[in-house]
């Protein structure tokens, strides 16, 4: 060893930048592979997509233009029950995973036709192995009797589900710390210096970190970090607003694309999409639209009181699919960024972390390289 740690410098096998759902899932997977892992997190001033998302473990329709994305989504959905059980075993936290299927409700025949066509194509592309059904209003009511008369129908996928994303983040963080992981959230990472024996990471506050490998899981923050290790993260924010209603007795046995009921009975309503830069606020106009659609889908929500609302920024690539890539310029640096940190959490903890741990090229992940945006 020729390197000498500067006073205050700390050492880990792997430094993971970003302590959200993506980062913590990979951190657990790397610990499972025997690595000493430090998670460098910006702290609560960060944009925090992992605290604002909707909590769906969603399969239907994902990867309609990229079969490999449909494959990892379904793989993650299959891995989820084991992952949730092991989190509960190690932390005692029940993250309320439920995978009994989900519905995407449509208000017009055109919307329903378009979804049915899209899922039909995916079914064909998967050689017939893609479970879904198109339901008319009567069939929808067999699953959810309360849907409104103006619902045209729904697409149903038995592999869909949902989870409490805040409990998921808490369970992963608790387990990571219990297994000796370190979370350093003293400030935003400013620079990553590639060095002969790995990387030196400097945060705005606190000391430096030295590590053999670095994994970028910083959401929209990856835009500035990726170029420092020879990678590219062309990400843009897309805002979603979420409304939260009072807790009511269970009325909804399945999650839908727009409305779900949590394990505690809370009604959660969402699925707005806006390109408004880095503004994570809420607007009356969009909240009204979200509420209006929810009431058409479920008239019994008419006088349910709203108790909270928030905006959060999705982390979007130009095509909406993840970037999974190892740096060839600076071996040991990895970029992991995606929109579906909840759905893909089990995949990230499992196969993706194993890929990073093995440090070997995986041709099946080439399709997720960022070069696709420049070709």
């Amino acid at each position, binding site marked *: 060893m020729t390197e000498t740690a500067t006073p205050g410098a700390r050492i880990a096998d792997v430094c993971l930048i970003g302590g959200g759902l993506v980062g913590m899932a990979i951190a657990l997977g790397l610990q499972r592979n025997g690595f000493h892992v430090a998670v460098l997190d910006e702290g609560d001033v960060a944009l925090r997509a992992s605290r604002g998302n909707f909590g769906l473990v969603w399969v239907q329709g994902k990867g309609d233009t990229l079969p490999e994305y449909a494959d990892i989504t379904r793989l993650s959905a299959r891995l989820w029950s084991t992952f949730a059980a092991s989190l509960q075993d190690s932390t005692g936290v029940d993250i309320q995973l439920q995978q009994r299927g989900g519905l995407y409700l449509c208000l017009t025949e055109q919307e329903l036709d378009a979804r049915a066509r899209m899922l039909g194509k995916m079914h064909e592309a998967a050689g017939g192995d893609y479970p879904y059904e198109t339901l008319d209003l009567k069939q929808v009511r067999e699953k959810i009797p309360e849907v409104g008369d103006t619902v045209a129908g729904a697409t149903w996928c038995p592999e869909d589900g949902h989870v409490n994303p805040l409990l998921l983040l808490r369970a992963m963080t608790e387990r990571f710390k219990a297994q000796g992981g370190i979370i350093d959230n003293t400030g935003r990472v400013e620079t990553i210096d590639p060095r002969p024996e790995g990387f030196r990471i400097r945060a705005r506050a606190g000391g430096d970190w030295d590590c053999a490998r670095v994994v970028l899981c910083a959401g929209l923050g990856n835009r500035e970090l990726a170029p420092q290790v020879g990678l590219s993260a062309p990400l843009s924010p897309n805002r979603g607003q979420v409304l939260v209603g009072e*807790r*009511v*007795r269970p009325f909804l046995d399945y999650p839908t694309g727009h409305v779900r009921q949590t*394990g*505690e009975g809370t009604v959660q309503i969402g699925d707005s999409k806006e390109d408004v830069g880095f503004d994570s606020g809420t607007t009356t106009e969009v909240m009204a639209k979200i509420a209006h659609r929810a009431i058409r889908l479920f008239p019994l929500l008419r006088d349910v009181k709203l*108790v909270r609302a928030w905006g959060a920024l999705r982390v979007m690539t130009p095509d909406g699919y993840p970037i999974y890539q190892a740096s060839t310029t600076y071996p040991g640096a990895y970029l992991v960024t995606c929109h579906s940190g909840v759905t893909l959490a089990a995949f990230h903890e499992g196969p993706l972390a194993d890929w990073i741990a093995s440090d070997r090229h995986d041709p099946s992940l080439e399709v997720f390289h960022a070069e696709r945006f420049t070709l």
Partner: protein
Amino acid sequence: MPNVSHFERLPMRASEPVTVFVEGQAIKVDSHDTAAAVVLMAGLVPSRTTPTSGSPRAPYCLMGVCFECLLDIDGVANQQGCMVKVRDGMQIRRQVGARDIHEPRQEPTT
């Protein structure tokens, strides 16, 4: 229910007595009172149970923030009692667990 109230009224403004019903029992209160004040005065503790664990609760912050004073008022569930002023004849009941948003079942006519 205890009939000795710890509430001491300060003569601040003119008011008139109003009769409300707490779990069906008539009680005379002040026209400026809130439903939350009434359940405290009537000793209706707990005045609600929580949706998830069924834990017993009573009015707490009395300023619309904590949601501990949820009550069933005139048949409408999950009302913040501290934000609702009494009316003559008001029916105040415990909020037991989560609210049921299904349409109230029609009672069969006999």
